[in-house]
């Protein structure tokens, strides 16, 4: 029982990070119908940037995160601008284009930060809490809190602001959105940069939990993808549920299957997605033909 709870808590904090990655995917998918394969590498760049500003430039952790988010949001703008000619035309080509950007970003990361990774010390120094016999690291709590804030912030943006509503309108019907005066290109660019910012947030947060190196994006990205699909691509609550589910599944698999955890995670995921391709919260209306 104790052990199960411990696994659960460990899974939830990583799951919160996956949920952030999944949310970025979902936002871009929802507005553009595109799965951004460079997303994982943007998260990796975010992790590196945050750790550099935190460790090397000695900025406070929170400030380092904000700067990293700004940097990656700018990268998101560039990607969207370059691939814009393909929007609403050939999604397979766009997908390959984002993979191309992923390759570029990985090379850039190696050029700037080298091939050796780095460990990031936790910005929270206090000792782990003991809740009913389960040890919870304070940093894990911080991660969950920040992720929850980001989810609420995004939900608020989409539900309560004019731009957020417009962004969703573009996703549903870009011609009608044009007719009410929305600049579809600019709205997509904004969605892309918010998505990139979320990736950086996830990358920055995961830094002190894992080891930061060029392969970080791969691990984070593919699980974020899986989380987004499991929850239902394009759905924000789906991203959260999917992220937590993958996190828990992952930590359970790591506990019970050790080295085969990734294999087990993806076999379970594939089976789940075969049974329900649209995910838990997915709607057919959102996924485009």
């Amino acid at each position: 029982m104790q052990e199960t709870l411990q696994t659960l808590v460990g899974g939830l904090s990583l799951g919160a990070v996956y949920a952030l990655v999944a949310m970025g995917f979902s936002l871009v998918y929802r507005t553009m119908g595109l799965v951004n394969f460079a997303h994982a590498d943007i998260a990796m760049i975010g992790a590196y940037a945050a750790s550099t500003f935190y460790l090397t430039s000695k900025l406070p952790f929170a400030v380092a995160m904000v700067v990293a988010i700004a940097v990656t949001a700018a990268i998101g703008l560039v990607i969207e601008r370059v691939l814009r000619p393909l929007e609403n035309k050939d999604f397979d080509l766009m997908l390959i284009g984002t993979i191309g950007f992923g390759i570029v970003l990985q090379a850039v990361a190696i050029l700037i930060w080298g091939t050796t990774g780095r460990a990031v010390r936790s910005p929270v120094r206090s000792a782990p809490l003991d809740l009913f016999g389960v040890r919870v690291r304070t940093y894990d709590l911080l991660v969950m809190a920040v992720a929850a804030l980001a989810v609420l912030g995004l939900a608020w943006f989409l539900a309560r602001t004019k731009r957020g509503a417009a962004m969703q309108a573009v996703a549903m019907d870009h011609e009608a959105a044009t007719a009410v005066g929305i600049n579809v290109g600019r709205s997509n660019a904004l969605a892309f940069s918010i998505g990139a910012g979320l990736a950086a947030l996830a990358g920055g947060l995961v830094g002190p939990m894992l080891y930061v190196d060029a392969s970080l994006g791969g691990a984070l990205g593919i699980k974020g993808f899986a989380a987004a699909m499991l929850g239902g691509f394009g759905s924000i609550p789906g991203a959260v549920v999917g992220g937590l589910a993958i996190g828990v599944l992952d930590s359970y698999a790591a506990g019970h299957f050790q080295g085969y955890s990734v294999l087990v995670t993806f076999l379970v995921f594939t089976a789940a997605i075969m049974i329900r391709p649209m995910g838990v919260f997915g709607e057919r209306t959102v996924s485009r033909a």
Partner: protein
Amino acid sequence: MKLSVKGPSATRAGGLAAIAVAAWLLPYGLGSYSIHVVNIAIIYALLAIGMGLAMGISGQINLAQVAFFGVGAYTLAILTTDSGYGFWAAAVIAVLATVATGLFVGIPALRMQSHYLGIVTLGLALGFINWITNASVTGGADGISGIPLPTLPGIDLSSEYLYYYLELVVCAFGLGFGLFVVRTSLGRRLRAMRDDSLAAGAMGAEIPLLRMTAFLLASLYGGLAGVLYAGLIRYVAPETFSIGNMFILLAMVIIGGRRSLVGCVVGAVGLTLIREWLSDFSTYAQLGYGVVVVLMVVFAPTGLAGIPSRVREFAHRRRRSHTEDRARLRPFQPYEAVETPDAADEPLLEIRSVTKDFRGLRALDDVSLTVRPGEIRGIVGPNGSGKTTLFNVISGFYRATSGQVRFGRRATTTARPYALSLLGVARTFQNLRLFGQLTVRENILVALDRTRTYTIWQYAVWQPGVVRRERQLRRQAQELLERFGLTDFAEAAPGSLPYGIQRRIEIARAMASRPRLLLLDEPAAGLNGEEVQQLARIVRSIRDSGTTVVLIEHNMGLVMSLCERVTVLSSGGVIAEGTPAEVVAAPEVIEAYLGDSAMADVPLPEPAPRQAPAGPTQASASAEASASAEAPASKEATR
């Protein structure tokens, strides 16, 4: 100038011979390290061919190709070092194991496409990498060494120079087989599926099996490459099968040209050599591939292989003015009339109280309809009245919410489009669904091909059977092209042709399957007066040849002159049925069309065959009529 004396096939044979000789002589000019690099390049070429077959030819995004590569190499390594198999026996098992893996990875393709498929295949590849890095049977991160040398009588394969020839032969066979597949029945169907899987299904292609076939082919090449790799290096370790290498493989295929197998080979060999050449600057090289992939995707999506045809197209456009008058649409040659079956025969198509709902929206409401053999039935009604939905139900694209459809003597309410096509139902589409990347002739050939997918066993064991069938199909295609007057456009891309010609190609393609029932969805949309008259002649001849015709049409003149009976739909229900004259006079019909029953009281002049307006043609069909065609939620849930 000498070349112009020879025919194109002689030129091609000459070119092939030159390449063969160059390949044969290549090792004499290379050092021992260079030949090693070339050997690696050939292995990547095999991998790229498999990837091209799945992604470029079949349109199935496959990011698990390195995993197939790995399964082949690891199976061979384990069997030879652990279980004591000989190299060649292990190689056969390894390839079979890879194909089995390929079929497993392909299962998700039955339910999802595009991005989703990319993620699932990538995830499975990652799972595989995770397994080989951690399992003890695979030697973990250290990998497996001590793989025995493959033996061939009289050839010492420990020499990389001689191994080169082994690889060369395998790769040449692999490329030859791949090109054979692409240019014959199977490849044509795969390409048709890539261009438009719905239309391909309506032409009798079994889409689920074809998707699996795409993965089967990709994994076959992956397995072969794995075996050759294990035999060459005699050591396998996880880093060879990393996601990074997967993406480089993807770059090879995109840069070379995913739709051309030769392009894939060129991309693979070229990129491997460049990668080796730049090995001291590998990170910059990686940066370079990434940038090139992005640029290619935006500016040259067909890759290097597509550049010659783009240049040709450009040159062609410049001197189009005097070539255009040579190609023309020739007159349709009528079919030989056969005895039409008795009108007393049992109905060919019977629809009994069919209802179709889309998320609360009722598109068809208790529609019943009976069509007898030999009839030309018109279906008319205002925009959004459910006509195209009805066609989609009949042809298996939609499943009726309730009610029954019977074709011939069978209940076909739940039949899939390919099954209906094989039973003898053919259709055209309101917005034209020709296979855009296939020539007109190939479009016809796809529909002519009536074989089931399982006949692809012939590709494995009896290729002459494939060739014989191909010859027969091509003869029939030529006949059909001549009948429909399309011979001048046989090798053209459909999208480059005028709208009226495309409409005719669609009818020819539908007739290629020799259907018993032909469904025409607005065949006159966008046609000018002359073309409408030709259409009327064609439809009559099709009926006289024994095919029953049901057509949706807005041009009432055409309906009046062509149809014996007309069914009128409005708001999803049948509001009238009868002869054209009866229907046009019915107040319900006038009201449905003009919204005003009072106007029905105005006397109508005698219906006469409509004189063609001399005005310009108009082709707004795609814009005007798209709403009724875009009914929500097609059968493909997550495409």
